[in-house]
């Protein structure tokens, strides 16, 4: 069994469905496996598996202009790989993005290769003036996802939710 929490992944997925998200782009990583599988198994969800996360900015922009709500699943290193698209597509054109970013490299990280990305994630979001919040407890998952989407749509800009170890991972 993967120690990635199936139950909490389900909470996140159901919250996205409640928000009428009908398209998700994803570049899989360990913490996102259940979410990607749920999207793949859902006949009412369009799942777009990407080669690189920045593509997801364009796909979500197209979906938004076409009238469909979407979400992006990525690791924080995928956020790093998406910066130009976020700035010169989503921010330049006032496109709402709902980005769910697995927050690797924070306290508790055992993989050395994740640690530099973790160290810059929050400062990067602040530098990009992207409003963000943490998903670190099941009690607030649904509410925070709904509120994040509300702000993205009212402000016409990207927002980020950091999927934290305490929520996503079942070992300490």
């Amino acid at each position, binding site marked *: 069994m993967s120690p990635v929490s199936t139950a909490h992944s389900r909470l996140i997925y159901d919250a996205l469905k409640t928000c009428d998200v*009908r*398209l998700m782009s994803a570049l899989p990583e360990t913490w996102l496996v259940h979410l990607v599988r749920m999207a793949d198994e859902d006949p009412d969800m*369009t799942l*777009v*598996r*990407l*080669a*690189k996360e*920045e*593509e*997801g*900015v*364009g*796909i*979500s*922009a*197209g*979906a*938004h*202009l*076409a*009238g*469909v709500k*979407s979400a992006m699943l990525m690791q924080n290193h995928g956020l790093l790989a998406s910066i*130009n*698209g976020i700035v*010169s*597509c989503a921010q*330049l*054109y*006032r*496109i709402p993005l709902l980005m769910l970013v697995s927050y690797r490299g924070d306290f508790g990280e055992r993989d050395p290769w994740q640690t530099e990305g973790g160290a810059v994630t929050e400062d990067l979001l602040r530098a990009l003036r992207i409003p963000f919040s943490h998903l670190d407890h099941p009690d607030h998952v649904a509410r925070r996802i709904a509120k994040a989407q509300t702000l993205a749509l009212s402000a016409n800009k990207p927002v980020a939710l950091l999927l934290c170890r305490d929520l996503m991972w079942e070992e300490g």
Partner: protein
Amino acid sequence: MKRLDALRAIYSHLEDRVVVTIMGAVAAELQSIGHRQNFFYLQHAMGLASSMGLGIALTRPERQVVVFDGDGSVLMNLGGLTTLARYRPRNMVHVVFDNESLLSVGGFPTATSTGTDLAAIAAAAGVPRTATVRTVDEFSRAFAEAIAAQDLTTIVAKVDAVGPSKYVTDLSLLENRFAFQRYLAIT
């Protein structure tokens, strides 16, 4: 072939299609022929025009989507060709104007000038229909065939490295974006 002549040759086909272009000469030249509410010009974010087209094509399968891309932009998002091919939107025609250079920043040659074949790359990525065309007649024919085929097609149109005298037009980016969104909402 001049890109402007190629655009003129197929302009009448764009009337009821959803059009996404890249920045620079393509956007300025299409606007010089005549802007329409169903045209969106991605004036930055190089590489993402085809991703935007995919997002529209997947969420609005009843609409026909045309993307006008360029060699410099495609080279920045070659992986996007694999995503396009993977989801194979049959309602999308992907035109790549290949002038073998980054024209708007001074004409520096791209890798297509030394042999990189974007149609072959698209085909190898899995795009079911590809073509390389060198004259306006060939381009018009390939475009009409792509529409008739009702399948994802990448047309690489080899064009001269010439463009408009200026790239900034009087259409503001946000005006274009919101009008385009409204067009898609009501049609």
